[in-house]
C-alpha cells in the first residue's frame, strides 16, 4: 500500500516536469496556419513542415523529437514548422484523419518529399532523412557491388569516394554521414549502403557496426587499377568522420627540416601523433619510400613526416632513425631505432592503444577520486597521526580540574576537538610552543579536548575549534585572535607578561621604557613601544587610552604616564597633552601624536596604523594586515635581502608621496619561498630578480610588471608608475576572479534512492537525456557496489577500515605503475 502511494506521488512529480517540458517545446517550434506557412516559404530554402489537426493533442513524442531537430536543421538552413490545419483553411497536405498526418519537405514551394511520421522516429532520423532528401545528388544510395564498381570506375582520376555502410536509414550513424556529406559533398562523392552483402564483398567481416571507407580514386590514372581504400577505425560520429576526412586531405608525407618538437601539422591539431622518419642525403630515396609505405598504413592514425637530418640544427641521437611525437602537449618526443615499417606501425598502434586505455582508466578513477582527501590540513594531520606528540608538556584539563587550575595560575587554554583536523594541526604548533617555553614561562599551558568535555567548552563559550583563551586571575578571559602558529602565540604570551598599559611611575622610568631598556626582552615581540602622556586630571582620556591598551593586549607594548611632572616629557618630545609617544626601536626614533578628543577606538586605530611600516617585508604572517588598506600592492620580489638601491628608490618615492595610492612592500624569497609560486602564476617561468610588480588585488586583478630591462631607479620607477596610472602600460596577466567552487562532486544519494525506488522503468523517453544519463550513472554505481560488495560484506561487521586498506593498496599500486 505504502509503496504504491509513494509511486503515485513520483508519477505526479514527473508528470508536472513533463508538462513543463512540453510547454517549452511548443514555444520554440513555430506554429502556423497553412496559409501563413506557405507565405513564409522562400525560393531555394528548404523547410520541413508537420501538418496536424488543430485539435490534436499538443503533445506527442514526435513533436518533442521534431522540436529537438529544430536547432540542428536550422544549422543547415532548414526551417521547421508545425502547421495547424484549421477547418476554415483546408490544405491538401492536411490529412483527413488524425493518424494520417505527415511531415513534408519543401524547397521553396516545391514539395521534395513526404514523410510518414513513423519514419521520423527520433531526432537523428529526422535530421538524417531531411539531409538525405536534400543531398540526393551528393549522396548516392547503392545496393549492389556492381553499383559501387561503376561509381569507382567513373571517378578514377577525378575524385575520391567516401563509402559508408550503416545498418539502417535514420540511425545516428546515418545522420553523422549525412551531416558530413553536407559539408564535404561537393569535394568527395558520398556513397551509402545498408546492404550487409555489399560490405562483406569488399572484405569486412564485422557487419554489426557502421563503417566508412575512403577510396583514393583521384590519383588512379590506370583504369584497371583499383582505388586504394582506407578504413576509418573510429565509431561513426560527425566529429570522427570530419577528423578522418581531414587526415585524408593532408599530404601523405611532409618533408621537414626543423626540430620535431616545433613541427605542427593538421594531425597534431586533430589529436593524432606524428612519426618522423629520419633521413639523410645518402639514403633519401629509400627513406622516402619507407615513409610513404608507412604513411599509407598509418593513414588516419598518425601523420608521417620525413625529417632531413643534414639540414637540421636540432640534436638528434646518432642511432635514432624514427622520432615519435605524441599529440599531447608537453610530452617529450621519443627517439627510436626501428628497422622495419611493421615495427613503426605497431609502435604507433600500441601507443594509441595505451592512450585509449589510459583514458578509460581515468574515467574509472573519477568516482573513487571523490574519496581521496583533497583537504591539505586534513590530509597532513592524518598522515601525521602515528607520531607521538609530547602532549605531557601541556596540562590536560577536565571538567573537574578546569576551574581550580585557571584560578590557581595564569593559564593559556587551548580548546580543540580531537577529530577536527584544523585544531589538531594547531595543537602541534601549541606543543612546539610548549617545548620552546619549557620551564621559562610563568604562564601555564593547558588544553581541553572538547570532544571529551563538551559541557565545559560550552560553558566557556567555545563552540568552534580551535580557540585559545588566556585566563589571568581576577580578570575576564581574553580570546587570542592572532595567527594560529607558534610565533604569534609566543608573542601574545610574552607581551601579556606585563599589564597593558603598564603604569610608568617616574620620568626616568619613562625614558627607559622609551629607549627599550625597561622591557628589553620584549622589544623583539613589539617593534614599537607606545606611551600615553596625560596630566593627572585627564580622567576620561586616561580611561580611553587604558581601554585601547587593553584591546591591543598581546600585540604591542603600551604604557601610561600621568604624574605631575609629565610636562618634562611633553616638552622634551614636543607633545601637547594628551599625547602618544611612539618609540620605534629599530629605527631609534620617537614620534609624538596628539590625542585630543580621541575615543578608545580612535586610539586603537592610531596605534595600529603606527605599527604599519612604510616599506615592509611582506610575509605570510603580515600580509592580511597590509591587505586591509585595500590598496594595490607594489611588490619588490627579491631573492635574499633587498638590494639597497632598490630600497632607496622606493623609500624616496614614498617620502615624496608618490606611492600614496599603493602599498609598497618587498618579498624575500628566502623567508617566503611561496613567493616563487606567485611569480610562477604571474610569469609562468621564474623571471630574473629583483623584480617589481603592481598587483591591483581589489580592483580588477591586473598584474603589471616593471620592465626587466630597466634599472629600478627613482626616475624609471616614477615614469613607469605615471604611465601605469595613465593606462599606458599593459598588464602581464589578470588574476582569475572565479569563485571557489566545490573541488569535486558529491554522491547524489537522492537520485540513487529514486532509482532504487522506481523499480519499473516507467519513465517515458520524453524525459531529457541528461536525466537519463544520470540514471545510467546511478546504475553503474549500483552495479559497481553490487560487484564490490561480495568480499567485504562477508565480514558481517561494519568494516570501513578494511575496505579502505584495499583502496590504499590499489592507490599505491597505481602510483608505482606511473613512476615506472
Amino acid at each position: 500500500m505504502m509503496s504504491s502511494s509513494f509511486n503515485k506521488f513520483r508519477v505526479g512529480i514527473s508528470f508536472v516536469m513533463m508538462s513543463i517540458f512540453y510547454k517549452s517545446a511548443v514555444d520554440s517550434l513555430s506554429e502556423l496556419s497553412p496559409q501563413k506557412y506557405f507565405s513564409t516559404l522562400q525560393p531555394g530554402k528548404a523547410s520541413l513542415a508537420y501538418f496536424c489537426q488543430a485539435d490534436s493533442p499538443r503533445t506527442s513524442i514526435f513533436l518533442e523529437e521534431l522540436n529537438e531537430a529544430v536547432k540542428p536543421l536550422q544549422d543547415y538552413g532548414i526551417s521547421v514548422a508545425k502547421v495547424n490545419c484549421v477547418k476554415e483553411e483546408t490544405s491538401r497536405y492536411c490529412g483527413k484523419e488524425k493518424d494520417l498526418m505527415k511531415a513534408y519537405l519543401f524547397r521553396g514551394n516545391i514539395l521534395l518529399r513526404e514523410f510518414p511520421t513513423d519514419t521520423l522516429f527520433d531526432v537523428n532520423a529526422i535530421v538524417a532523412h531531411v539531409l538525405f532528401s536534400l543531398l540526393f545528388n551528393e549522396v548516392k544510395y547503392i545496393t549492389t557491388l556492381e553499383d559501387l564498381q561503376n561509381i569507382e570506375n567513373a571517378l578514377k582520376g577525378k575524385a575520391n569516394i567516401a563509402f559508408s555502410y550503416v545498418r539502417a536509414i535514420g540511425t545516428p550513424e546515418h545522420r553523422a554521414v549525412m551531416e558530413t556529406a553536407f559539408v564535404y559533398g561537393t569535394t568527395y562523392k558520398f556513397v551509402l549502403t545498408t546492404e550487409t552483402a555489399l560490405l562483406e564483398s569488399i572484405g569486412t567481416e564485422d557487419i554489426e557496426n557502421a563503417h566508412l571507407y575512403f577510396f583514393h580514386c583521384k590519383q588512379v590514372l590506370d583504369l584497371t587499377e583499383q582505388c586504394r581504400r582506407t578504413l576509418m577505425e573510429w565509431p561513426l560520429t560527425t566529429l570522427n568522420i570530419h577528423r578522418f576526412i581531414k587526415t585524408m586531405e593532408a599530404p601523405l608525407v611532409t618533408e621537414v627540416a626543423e626540430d620535431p618538437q616545433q613541427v605542427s601539422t593538421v594531425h597534431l591539431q586533430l589529436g593524432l601523433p606524428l612519426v618522423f622518419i629520419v633521413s639523410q642525403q645518402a639514403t633519401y630515396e629509400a627513406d622516402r619510400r619507407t615513409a610513404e609505405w608507412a604513411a599509407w598504413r598509418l593513414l588516419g592514425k598518425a601523420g608521417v613526416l620525413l625529417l632531413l637530418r643534414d639540414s637540421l640544427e636540432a640534436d638528434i641521437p646518432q642511432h635514432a632513425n624514427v622520432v615519435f611525437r605524441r599529440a599531447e602537449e608537453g610530452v617529450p618526443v621519443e627517439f627510436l631505432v626501428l628497422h622495419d615499417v611493421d615495427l613503426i606501425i605497431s609502435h604507433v598502434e600500441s601507443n594509441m592503444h595505451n592512450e585509449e586505455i589510459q583514458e578509460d582508466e581515468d574515467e574509472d578513477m573519477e568516482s573513487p577520486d571523490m574519496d581521496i582527501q583533497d583537504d591539505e590540513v586534513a590530509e597532513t594531520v592524518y598522515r601525521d597521526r602515528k607520531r607521538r606528540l609530547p602532549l605531557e608538556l601541556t596540562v590536560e584539563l577536565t571538567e573537574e580540574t578546569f576551574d581550580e587550575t585557571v584560578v590557581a595560575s595564569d593559564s593559556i587554554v587551548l580548546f580543540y576537538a580531537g577529530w577536527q583536523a584544523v585544531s589538531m594541526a594547531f595543537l602541534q604548533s601549541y606543543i612546539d610552543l610548549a617545548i620552546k617555553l619549557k620551564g621559562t614561562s610563568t604562564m601555564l599551558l593547558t588544553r581541553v579536548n572538547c570532544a571529551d568535555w563538551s559541557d565545559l567548552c560550552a560553558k566557556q563559550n567555545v563552540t568552534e575549534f580551535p580557540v585559545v583563551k588566556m585566563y589571568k586571575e581576577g580578570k575576564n578571559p581574553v580570546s587570542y585572535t592572532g595567527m594560529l602558529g607558534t610565533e604569534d602565540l609566543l608573542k601574545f604570551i610574552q607581551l601579556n607578561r606585563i599589564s597593558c598599559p603598564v603604569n610608568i611611575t617616574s620620568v626616568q622610568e619613562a625614558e627607559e621604557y622609551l629607549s627599550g631598556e625597561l622591557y628589553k626582552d620584549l622589544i623583539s615581540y613589539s617593534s614599537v613601544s607606545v606611551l600615553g602622556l596625560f596630566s593627572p586630571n585627564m580622567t576620561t582620556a586616561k580611561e580611553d587610552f587604558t581601554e585601547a591598551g587593553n584591546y591591543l593586549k598581546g600585540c604591542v607594548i603600551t604604557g601610561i604616564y600621568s604624574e605631575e611632572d609629565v610636562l618634562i616629557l611633553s616638552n622634551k618630545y614636543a607633545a601637547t597633552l594628551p599625547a602618544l609617544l611612539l618609540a620605534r626601536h629599530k629605527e631609534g626614533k620617537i614620534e609624538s601624536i596628539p590625542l585630543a578628543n580621541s575615543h578608545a577606538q580612535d586610539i586603537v586605530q592610531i596605534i595600529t596604523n603606527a605599527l604599519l611600516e612604510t616599506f615592509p617585508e611582506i610575509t605570510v604572517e603580515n600580509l592580511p594586515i597590509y591587505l586591509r588598506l585595500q590598496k594595490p600592492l607594489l611588490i619588490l620580489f627579491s631573492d635574499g635581502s633587498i638590494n639597497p638601491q632598490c630600497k632607496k628608490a622606493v623609500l624616496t618615492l614614498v617620502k615624496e608621496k608618490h606611492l600614496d595610492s599603493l602599498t609598497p612592500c618587498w618579498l624575500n624569497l628566502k623567508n617566503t619561498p611561496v613567493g616563487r609560486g606567485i611569480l610562477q602564476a604571474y610569469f609562468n617561468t621564474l623571471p630574473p630578480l629583483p623584480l617589481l610588480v603592481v598587483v591591483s588585488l581589489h580592483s580588477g586583478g591586473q598584474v603589471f610588471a616593471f620592465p626587466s630591462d630597466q634599472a629600478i631607479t627613482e626616475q624609471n620607477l616614477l615614469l613607469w608608475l605615471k604611465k601605469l596610472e595613465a593606462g599606458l602600460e599593459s598588464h602581464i596577466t589578470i588574476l582569475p576572479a572565479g569563485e571557489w567552487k566545490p573541488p569535486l562532486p558529491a554522491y547524489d544519494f537522492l537520485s540513487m534512492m529514486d532509482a532504487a525506488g522506481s523499480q519499473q522503468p516507467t519513465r517515458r523517453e520524453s524525459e531529457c537525456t541528461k536525466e537519463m544519463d544520470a540514471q545510467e550513472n546511478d546504475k553503474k554505481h549500483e552495479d559497481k557496489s553490487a560487484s564490490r560488495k561480495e568480499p567485504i560484506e562477508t565480514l558481517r561487521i561494519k568494516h570501513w577500515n578494511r575496505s579502505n586498506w584495499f583502496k590504499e593498496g590499489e592507490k599505491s599500486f597505481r602510483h608505482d605503475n606511473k613512476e615506472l
Partner: protein
Amino acid sequence: MGLSAVARLWGPPGLLLTFALHPALCLRPVQTSAPRHRDYCVLGAGPAGLQMAYFLQRAGRDYAVFERAPRPGSFFTRYPRHRKLISINKRHTGKANAEFNLRHDWNSLLSHDPRLLFRHYSRAYFPDAGDMVRYLGDFADRLGLHVLYNTTIAHVTLDKDRQAWNGHYFILTDQMGHAHQCSVLLVATGLSVPNQVDFPGSEYVEGYESVSVDPEDFEGQNVLILGRGNSAFETAENILGVTNFIHMLSRSRVRLSWATHYVGDLRAINNGLLDTYQLKSLDGLLESDLTDLAVVKDREGKFHITLKFFLEEGNQSADAVTLPQDDNDNFAMRVAYDRVIRCLGWNFDFSIFNKSLRLSSGGELSKKYPLVKASYESKGSRGLFVLGTASHSVDYRRSAGGFIHGFRYTVRAVHRLLEQRHHGVAWPSTKHPISQLTSSIVRRVNEASGLYQMFGVLADVVLLKENAMAFEYLEEFPTQMLAQLETITGRKARHGLFVINMEYGRNFSGPDKDVFFYDRSVGHTEDAWQSNFLHPVIYYYRHLPTEQEVRFRPADWALPRPTAIHHIVEDFLTDWTAPVGHILPLRRFLENCLDTDLRSFYAESCFLFALTHQKLPPFCQQGYLRTQGLMGTESLRRHGVESGLLRDYATVGRRREDGGRGLLGGSQAPGPPVQALDSNKEEL
C-alpha cells in the same frame, strides 16, 4: 490575604473609610476565592512535570507544579509491579563526554547538576523502581522546584479572556475547592487509567495493577494472561517457573523491540516466555481479538474461554454455556484456567478536563493518548501542552517520546517554543562562519543525545545566512513543525537550510523483519544511503518546506523531499569522525549544496591565493584574512609535500637552473589551477 487586609485597616486615617472598606475587603476572599494566577501550571510531578519545572525555573518563569501525591514520581512507587525498570542505566561508556553519555542513560532528567545523574542512584543496569522515586525526589528538592504536593486537581475548565496570552485562562480546581488560574497549562499526568476490555466475564479477570506479585500464589496453576506488552511479559516472567503453564492472548502478534527499534515493544529482558514457548514447553502465545471473548466460571471456580457469540445465543447458566471445543474439539484454549490476568496497559485520564478544552483522544493507533500537534500543543485549545508519556501520540511506535530518555528532550523543545512565544526569547542558536559548517555538524552528530534518542522526531537545523557565508545552528527542533520554524523559533530561514536527522534504514525495522540478515551493514561511503543502522542523514532545502510539503511528504520519509540528501554511512561504533569515511563525503555534500569550496588551508596556501586570485576560499577569508591563519608546523608541511597537496616552494625553479627542465615538478597546487592565468594572458 486576611492578614494583609487587617494590616491595611490600621493604616488609613478616619473611621468612616474603615467602615466602608471593611466589608468589601473581608468578604471577597471568603466568598469567591479569587483564583491565584500563574503563567505556567504543570500537572503532575512525574519525570516530565519535573523536567518542565526545571526549565521554567531556570528561565525564571512564574510557575507551579500540582502533584496529587506527597512526593514526586508516585507512579513509580507502585509500578512496575515487579519493580525492575527496563530503561538502561549505563554507567560506563568509556567516554567523558557528558552529552554523549546521555545517549546511553535512559533514566536521568536534564539538568546542569552532574550530581543529578541516575548513575549516582543505582548501580544496576536495569534499576529498581524505588531508585527512580528517590531520584525524582532529589531532583525536585535539590533544584528547589515549586511543587504543590498533596494537591489533586479535580477539574480543569477554560475561562475566556481577551487579556490572556492565548485568549483564555485555564482554571484548575483542586480538591479543596481552591481555583488556580493559568495562562499556559502543561499536562504531564502520564497514563494512569488501566486499559480494560469489556467482555462477558471480565469481572473474573485480575488486573496487572492489583494481581499478586508473589510467585507462591501461582504454584501449580494454569494461567492465562491477556496482553502482549512488557507488563504482560513481566508478569509472566515472574511466575514462569511455578505455574503449570502460561498462555498469553492478544490481538496482534508480538513485537520485539530489537526488531522494531522501538523501546515500547517487548524487550529482550522480559521475553523468557518466548524462549520456553518456542522450545516446546507448555507455555504458549495465541492471537485473537479480546472483544470477541467471554470468560465463564465453572463450579470449581475454574475459568473457561468461550466466545461472546455463544453467550448471546444460549442461556447464561455457567455449565450450560457452549464452548468452542464442543464444535471444534482441538480448540486451543479448551483447558480450564485457574487465573486470568489482564495486562493491557494504561490510558490517559481525560476525566478531569472540561469539554470546553476539547482535549480528545488520538487516532486509531493511539486511542490512549490525547490528540496533540507535533509541537505537543493540544489541537483543541491553544496554550495547553501535553508532556511526557501522555504526549507519545506524536511518535508512538517510532521513537522514544513516551519514555524519559525521549521526552526529556521534547519537554525542552516545548519550553523553547514557549520562551519565544510568550517572552520573545528566540530559540537558542549559535552563529558561525561557513568554514565551521562541517565541524558543527560532525560535532553534533557524534555527541548530541537528543538527536540520537528522538531520532526522526527532533532534528538539528542549520539556517544559512545571505550568500551562505555564515549560518545559525539550532538544536533539536521538532521536524514535523518545520514549516512553522520561523514563528516557533523567531529565527529567519530565508537562504536555505540543512536539517540533521538520525534514521534507521527504510526497510530495516519492523516486527516481522529479520534484523540479523547477512548483508545488513554498509561499509562503503557511496552506499551510505543503504545504511540500516541508526545513522545521520542531512537534508538540504533551498527554501523552508511548506506545511503542505511536510504533511504530504512521501511515505516512509521523515521529512519532505529535499533538494539534496546525504547519508553518513552507518558506523559500528557510532563514531562518525573518520576523516575519509565520514567527514570528507559530508564536506563534499555541503560544498555542492552551497556551491563553494569548504576545504581548510594552511596560511601559506591562503597567502598564495591572496596574491594570485581575486577571491579567496571561505576558510582563508574567514581565517587567514582576519589574521587567524593556520601556520602549521615543519612536520605537517613535509607530509603535505609528500601527499602532493602542498608544494615545496624552496625547490621551485631550482631544477631549471640545473638542467633546464620544466618548472612544475609534477605536483599540483590545490585550488583553481594556475592555467587560468595563462588563458587570460592569451586573450590579451
